[in-house]
Structure formats: C-alpha cells, structure tokens
C-alpha cells in the first residue's frame, strides 16, 4: 500500500502496463519531456524512450487516427487528449473508426486502444477545459467508457482498460487528480472493471454517481447522515457497459434514487439511469428518480462554476426532494 494522488496512481499504472507489455505505447501532446500538462506521464519518456512515449504533432484526429493504424499493426496505443474540450476534433475517428472497427471487420481486427481524457470542472480553468462529454461516448456502440473515482480505482482500472481488447474512453476526473488514497501497487490486478460498486450502504436514498461526483455524494451522504437520513452511494465506474444491477437492488430497498453528474442533465448519463431505474424498479419507487447535474448551457465562465456544478448542498436538496414525496 502506498499513499498516492490520482496523478501518481495513473502514472504508476501506466508504467506497470508498459513494463508488462512491450506493445503498449503512449501518444499525445506534451506527454514527453513535459510529462503531460497534469504530469500523468511524468518520467515515462525518459524510461521507455521516444518510440513508446510519443509527443505528437498538434492534431487530435491525427493522434486517434494513427493509433487506429498502430492497433491494426498489433500495438496497444494509450492516448492522451489534453483536455475534455479538445476531444471533438477526434470525434469522427473515435465514433466512426475506433468504435466500429471490430464490428466492421467481423471480429478480425480488434481495436485495443485507451483514450485518456481529463474531464470535468472545478479547477477554475478557461473555456473548453471543464467539460463532461461522456454521454456522447456512452451513446456510441463499440466503445467502452470508464471513469475512476479515486486514486486506488485509477491505478487498477487504467491497467484493465489497457488490457482490454476493446477501445476504452477513459475519463479522468481532473478535480480529483490531487486527491490522495492508499493504493495497492503490489497485488496482481483483479476484479471486473465493467461493474458498478456500492461505496456506501444506506437505507433511505440511493445516490448514483461516477468520477468526480462520487466524492461529492459521499460527502453529501455523510452530511445527510448527520440529519438522520441514511444514503447509499453507488459508483457506476463503467459508463459503457452500464451495470445498474446494484442500483436496482439498492433502490428496491430505499425506494428513492438521486443521480448526480456534472454534464447537462438533458440526455446525460442520468437520463439513461433514470429511464432504466424507472423501468426496473417501477413498483418499488416511492418518488421519481431525481437528476442533479449541469444546466442546459455551455460550461460557463469559471467564476460561475461553483454555482453551476453540483455540490453537497445541491445533492442534499435533491435528497430532500425525493424524501418529500
């Protein structure tokens, strides 16, 4: 067990994956000598060389598109998109080529690839640096979508993402990059990343979250507890596939469900969760599933973000809401 920030955990996970498999290579902008703008790849080029840690030209479609070719040749590219807002120039390659390649080739050509994207707000950044575009990818058949909630998760799931023969969009909650946790960096990697996990058990309300909002929901659950309300917290972890079975089990007991994310509520992950929970727990629900998330606006200038982003108070307000019915 080692105390690590999420950045350090990701760095250690990448390093281990590269040690274990010579076909793993990293590509992105500024991931070499600089170590990435968040330092996730710090020191890796020094140790693995320029052929395995590639500073690319400034072109996201180029990064993803050449990675398709590398994967066809048997490599396992792990790409860094510098910020959430810069993934869109690569959207065509991701949605049209990466996602469909295995299907189009009738399984002849797997497309193992990880696209790491620091996402979400809360760090006072300028435009295009705080977005939560995960729903676009979760709506796209052929992609897998993972997002860790803490350093321990990050260390394990980045390696599992790299080991997967399917393309994985790996969303890193940048506001949690500097949170520390105890990381087991010794044991072999086990467990199924494509599942959600109950991170707190409760009896009155089921909170569902992922990535940056897991901590927020845990804090809200702790605060609610002080008011005598017992909340479960489920970390979805995998956004594609979705594993809502633990949510259904929990909601069948609590009868109340609140889904929380930073992305706009409309057609966000919460829409799918609400639709499925409403279907599967139809007779158990005591109140409609509540959704807490971004308003229907582009990410606002950062002086607004503390109001725009869901926080403990907003989650508590939603808990009050579902309990009021």
């Amino acid at each position, binding site marked *: 067990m080692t105390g690590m920030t999420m950045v350090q955990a990701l760095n250690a996970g990448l390093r281990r994956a590269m040690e274990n498999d010579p076909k793993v290579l990293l590509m992105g902008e500024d991931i070499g000598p600089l170590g990435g703008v968040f330092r996730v790849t710090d020191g890796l080029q020094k140790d693995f060389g320029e052929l395995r840690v590639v500073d690319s030209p400034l*072109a996201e479609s180029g990064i993803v598109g050449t990675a398709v070719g590398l994967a*066809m040749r*048997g490599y396992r590219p792990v790409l860094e998109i510098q910020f959430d807002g810069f993934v869109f120039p690569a959207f065509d390659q991701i949605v049209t080529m990466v996602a469909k390649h295995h299907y189009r080739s009738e399984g002849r*050509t797997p497309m193992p690839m990880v696209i790491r994207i620091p996402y979400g707000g809360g760090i006072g950044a300028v435009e295009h640096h705080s977005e939560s575009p995960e729903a676009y990818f979760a709506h796209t058949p052929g992609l897998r979508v993972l997002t860790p909630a803490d350093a321990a998760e990050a260390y394990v799931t980045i390696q599992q993402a790299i080991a997967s023969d*399917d393309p994985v969009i790996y969303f890193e909650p940048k506001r949690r990059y500097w949170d520390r946790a105890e990381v087991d960096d010794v044991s072999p990697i086990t467990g199924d990343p494509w599942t959600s996990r109950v991170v707190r058990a409760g009896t009155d309300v089921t909170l569902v979250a992922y990535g940056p909002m897991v901590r927020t929901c845990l804090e809200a659950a702790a605060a609610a507890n002080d008011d005598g309300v017992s909340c479960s917290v489920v970390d979805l972890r995998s956004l594609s596939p979705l594993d809502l079975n633990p949510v259904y089990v929990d909601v069948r007991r609590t009868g109340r469900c609140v889904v929380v994310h930073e992305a706009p509520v409309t057609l966000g992950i919460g829409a799918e969760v609400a639709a499925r929970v409403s279907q599967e727990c139809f007779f158990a629900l005591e109140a409609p599933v509540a959704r807490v998330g971004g308003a229907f606006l582009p990410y606002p200038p950062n002086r607004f973000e503390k109001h725009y982003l869901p926080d403990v108070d907003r989650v508590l307000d939603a808990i009050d809401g579902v309990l009021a019915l």
Partner: protein
Amino acid sequence: MAETAIQLLTPEGTRVEHPDYPLEVSAEQLRTMYRDIAITRRMDVESTALQRTGELSLWCPTLGQEGVQVGAGHAMRPGDYGFTTYRESGIFHVRGVEADELLQLYRGNTHSSWDPQRVGLGLFTIVIGSHALHAVGYAMGIQRDGTDDAVLACFGDGATSTGDVHEAMVFAAAFSSPVVFLVQNNQWAISVPVERQSRVPIAQRALAYGMPGIRIDGNDVLAGLAVTRTLLDRAREGGGPALIEAITYRMGPHTTSDDPTRYRDESDYAHWDELDPLERLRRHLLLIGEADEVFFAAVEAECEELGEKVRGSIRGMPDPDPMLMFDAVYAEPHRDVEADRAQMGAYFTRLQESA
C-alpha cells in the same frame, strides 16, 4: 516537381524510358497485368449489372482507373499493406480478394468481406480521407517493428481537401514513416471538379511537408508500377513518405446511383478514351510480340468465367441470419449488447409464434 506527368508507356503502346524510374518488366508480368485490368473491368460490368437487378445495393465503378490501380498493386510486396477507398477493385483483385468475396459488402451482407491480414489490405473507409491516418499509423507500427514493409495509402482528389489527409501527411513527415500516398486524381469528386479542391496540381501538396510529389499518367500501368515501387522502396529504406498524383478519369458514374449527365459533358470522354489503360497495354503487347489473339481470347474467356461465377454466387443469395448482427460488436462481452441480443431473440420468437 515534375511539371508533366510521368509516362512509361505511350497511348500508342510504345515504351518510354524515364531516368528516375527505370523499369524492367517481363512479358509474363505484362500479360498478368493485362489480365488483371481486363478482369477488373469485367467485374465492373458484372457488378453494375447485378446492382441494376437489385442483387447489390450499390457499386462504385473503377472504369478508366485500372491502370494505376493494377500497377500500384503490383508494386507492393506481400508484406506491404494497403489502405484503399471504395473505388479500388483493381488493387483488391491484384492482392487476391475474390470478386464474389468483395461483393458481399455491396450486397449488404457485411461491412467487410475479406481478411485484412491475409491480403494486406485494411477495410476501406467510406468516410472520405480518414483511412489516410490509419495508413500512417500502420507505418509507424512498422517502424517500431523494425521490418522493411511499407504502406500504400490510396484516396481520391476530393479526399485531399479533408483535414485527415493533411494530418496524415503531417504525421508521416514528422516521423518519416514508410508510407506512400497515392492520389487518384480522376478529375471529379462526385459532381465537383478537381479545380474546386485545388487550383494547383495535387502533387504540389507534397511540398508543404517536404516530401516528393510526383505526377504520373494514371492510365499507364507501367508508370503506376515503376513510380509506386520506387517510392515504396525509398520509404522502406528510411527515405520517408512521398506522394503520387495519378492523372486519370472516372469514365463511369460516381456510383450506380449517380447521374453524371447532370454535371459533365459527354464530349470529355473521347479524350480519355484514347488514353485507355487496357487498350494501351494491348497495343504494347502486340507491338513487342508478346501476346496474340489466342492470348486475348483466353483472357476474354477467363472474364466470362468470372462473370458466371460472380453471378452464380451472388444472385438470389439468402440473407444472413438476423441474429448475426449482434456478433463482434465488442471483442469481449458487453452487458448492454447481450441484453439487447436476448431481448431481440425473445421478440423474434414471439413474432414467429404470433405469425
């Protein structure tokens, strides 16, 4: 950059030497290439006919462009890898994809019917330009493997306008990757003439990246062979990427859905007819006395046979089992796909029961 297009075989069928692209080619290989062009052309005719009778959803005729396609196909080594468009049946044929194999795709049975590993050809991409990047990435993989394979990336004049083709050239140049970009400038992107994509020769694009840009007569199979081979070899030896602009003409419609009379003049065709790649090679073979009417008749018979085989295997082919559509979405099981598969299976059962 060469101002005029490189030609090794005149329209009249006489050989021309070019100092930079010496070519030794056996009579046997000449005859093989003749046969390849003829078969490619017959496949065009058969496929168009099959489309007309509803057996295929679509066909993209190659007519007129077979010269450079067959030449480039012959320039590739077995270990080389090609990335093509939908209009490249010449290369597909040369690399060993059977006609009825390829047509599975146009019938709508599959998104890709050949095994990329076996023939060394990636899936072709209909989203214009995007595969140029795959080609460069594949070439970057070759560099890491340390082999001397090289990659051929084929696309049209229209594709050169896309951002992806630019980024492909930027990456290829930055990493000096073993890839040759082969642009078939057939003068049209559906109804849009090449002048809308570029006011200067497409080959000039190469200057932007510091790589050679060579114009060739795209209806000259020998120029296609020699220049592509030279540049592939240069690339595999570490010389970096290059660009070929093959000047040719799309003699048919864009696809079987297209109506070229809306946007171009019949009178254009005559000029290009005289430059026909098949006729040119026929003349050459006759001139050098390496083929006779017996040979041409044998090729014709082989084409007939191909036609029959294709018609036989495509016509009235049964549709695939609907449940197959759930296969291979992912390499590893995915909960949501499995749920949908189960749901759809149950629905099909209900439907059958109620019928």
